[in-house]
């Protein structure tokens, strides 16, 4: 039996290895994702285009403009004469913020009469607008400080902020676990469900079911290669995190890898469950896409904080396996946790494996008995 099974796995493996296009993507995907998250997905800003409406045009206002643009965060795109022209610039998307310097800037400033600087943002992008406003405010305060005489006022409460586990605020601490969870889910669950759905669609499933191997072993044989491939992908993601983005692995590597296998098993069980339900590859793909990929991306907490979501989504996020796997990875990799402190997520994943396989087995028996 084992010999037949191994021969079967071998055949399936050759099948996959011959398909270079899929292989390229299988390994290209994690690399591309890690690089994209590492280098392009950021809320920091540089060279934001601004317009300055200088209604004074005196020495101090020139100095002020220079002060604002010297940092490199703002790029002066335009010096229009009135506020109304901002509308056109915002609509064309060339400019994100307008700064209005009122008339008599220099005179009022040194007379110490309050001077109001107007910051007008294109708030159709609210986050970007907020970031720009707060940065501009900082710049304005520092300009004001240059001309203030007094030093730090007394009776100041200092707030000492210490960033735990991630003192340099490296984004990779967050996205590496997320990408690992996403890739494992994508490859093992989706590929599994598609592979089995394909056998159904092309009618070769019946052929396999009359072979001497029990059906569950057949399915196992079909998904075995994907288990190995996605495991390699996980290792690839961890390695890129470690070597490129300096994500440490404080805890036990063996623990991390064996828990990755546990998560992988959950993903496979999900894939098998979907495939017992879906009749065609397209159906399997759509179900995988909407029940696996998007929840894994959105509700696992690596792109958007779950705690800030409405409670319905918070509850849904509790049944998203990736959520627990991300917790586990962060605990092991960054906090150096042992298995005792993450026993809760581990237990949940184990329960998921049993429930999902039981459900898949039940469906399978309904169809093939």
């Amino acid at each position, binding site marked *: 039996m084992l010999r037949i099974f191994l021969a079967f796995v071998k055949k399936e493996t050759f099948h996959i290895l011959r398909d270079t296009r899929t292989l390229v993507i299988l390994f290209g995907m994690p690399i591309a*994702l890690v690089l994209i998250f590492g280098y392009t997905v950021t809320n920091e800003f540089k060279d934001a285009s601004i317009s300055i409406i200088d209604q004074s045009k005196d020495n101090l206002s020139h100095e002020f403009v220079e002060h604002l643009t010297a940092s490199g965060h703002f790029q002066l795109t335009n010096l229009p004469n009135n506020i109304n022209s901002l509308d056109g610039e915002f609509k064309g998307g060339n400019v994100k913020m307008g700064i209005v310097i009122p008339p008599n800037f220099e005179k009022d400033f040194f007379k*110490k009469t309050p001077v109001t600087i107007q910051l007008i943002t294109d708030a159709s992008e609210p986050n970007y607008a907020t970031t720009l406003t707060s940065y501009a405010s900082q710049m304005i305060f520092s300009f004001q400080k240059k001309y203030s005489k007094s030093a730090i006022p007394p009776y*100041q409460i200092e*707030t000492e902020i210490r960033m735990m586990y991630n003192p340099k605020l490296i984004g990779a601490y967050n996205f590496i676990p997320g990408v690992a969870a996403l890739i494992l889910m994508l490859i093992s669950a989706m590929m599994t469900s598609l592979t089995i759905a394909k056998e159904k669609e092309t009618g070769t499933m019946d052929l396999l079911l009359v072979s001497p191997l029990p059906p569950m072993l057949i399915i196992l044989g079909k998904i075995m290669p994907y288990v190995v491939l996605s495991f390699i992908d996980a290792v690839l993601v961890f390695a890129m995190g470690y070597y490129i983005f300096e994500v440490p692995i404080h805890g036990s590597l063996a623990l991390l890898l064996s828990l990755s296998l546990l998560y992988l098993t959950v993903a496979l069980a999900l894939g098998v469950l979907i495939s017992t339900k879906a009749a065609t590859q*397209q159906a399997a793909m759509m179900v995988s896409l909407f029940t696996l990929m998007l929840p894994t991306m959105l509700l696992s907490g690596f792109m958007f904080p779950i705690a*800030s979501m*409405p409670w319905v989504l918070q509850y849904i996020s509790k049944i998203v396996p990736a959520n627990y796997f991300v917790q586990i990875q962060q605990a092991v990799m960054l906090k150096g946790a042992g298995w005792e402190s993450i026993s809760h997520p581990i237990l949940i994943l184990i329960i998921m494996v049993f429930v999902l396989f039981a459900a898949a087995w039940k469906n399978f028996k309904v169809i093939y008995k």
Partner: protein
Amino acid sequence: MRKLFYIVQKEFIQIFRNKAILPLMTVVPIMQLIVLSFAASNEVRNVQLAIVDQDNSEYSRLITSKIKNSDRFILMDNPPSVKLADGMMQSGNADIILTIPPQFEKNFFKNKTGEIQLLVNAINGQQATVGAAYLAQIIQSFNQEIRLDAVPQLAVMKQFSSPQLRIENSNWYNPDLSYKDFMVPGILGELATLLVMLLTAMNIVREREIGTIEQINVTPIKKWQFILGKMIPFLFIGMFLLTVGMIAGKLIFDIPIVGSLWVIFAYCLLNLTAVLGIGLFISNLADTQQQAMFITFFFAIIFILMCGLFTPIESMPKMAQYFTIPNPIAHFVHVMRSVLLKGSEFSDVAYNFKVTAVLAVVFNSLAILSYRKVS
């Protein structure tokens, strides 16, 4: 032309017979829209905060109550020691630990200074770091109050000692800084594109996998007729999807529609044409549906992450910004937001129209060239 009609007719019959596709065009996008709009938010709320109050003075209680008044924090049961609080953070029950040291109030008057410590779980950057920034703000404003309390003459002194710059803030187009107004139009564009791309990518390759394509290939039908016949139904689906999404967006989220719907729909048509070209091109390259789907996912994920939907394109490195030019989703998201929220007119988004037109020509040429009737 008549032959084209028959192909289109056939595709429509198949689409409507396929039980998976209809819900996919109606229920799923609306669900997606709702979930995404709520989930994909960068607003920070419900930050778990543990306050270790070792002073237990009037001031320390005042700080605690000020924080309580902010709706962004969930105060955990006050742990008596920093050590216990550390344990809470380790197990994920606290995002931030705020420690008020013993003798805080006393030292404030004696030494004219005080110190409050924030320990921030910085792994999940946003939740904790943004939370910490809010806390720092709250502490600052508390500081202002008690400083005036302690030495009222400071206020007067300061006013005359240095120049005064005030900041007045106005947020155009979205004065409440509503994140949903920002996300929903973008998500609509992204959804329509993604779905159409996936469906088309799997279409021709499915006919090849099942074998029906061979029967088509022995008919005298021309390449362009076949490709166009495949495209038209999916164009309809995409447009339909956008319409359903816009209605849902209006009814559920009350998104603003400031600009012209004509511009939106005209652009959608153009954009979907380009996306269809990509889908068909992938379909021609792939041997199996599985392959097609995988290739599509690969590009879709890259397109989505780099389209400016979640993080601004302006924040990307210059090199990466160039990669967004051939990304149809990036243009779609931009046009949807500009027109719906700001009321941009055609001339404002003409650049996106032009680029997308070029993309449409390029991708569809690739699709037609790569479709082989002869081996």
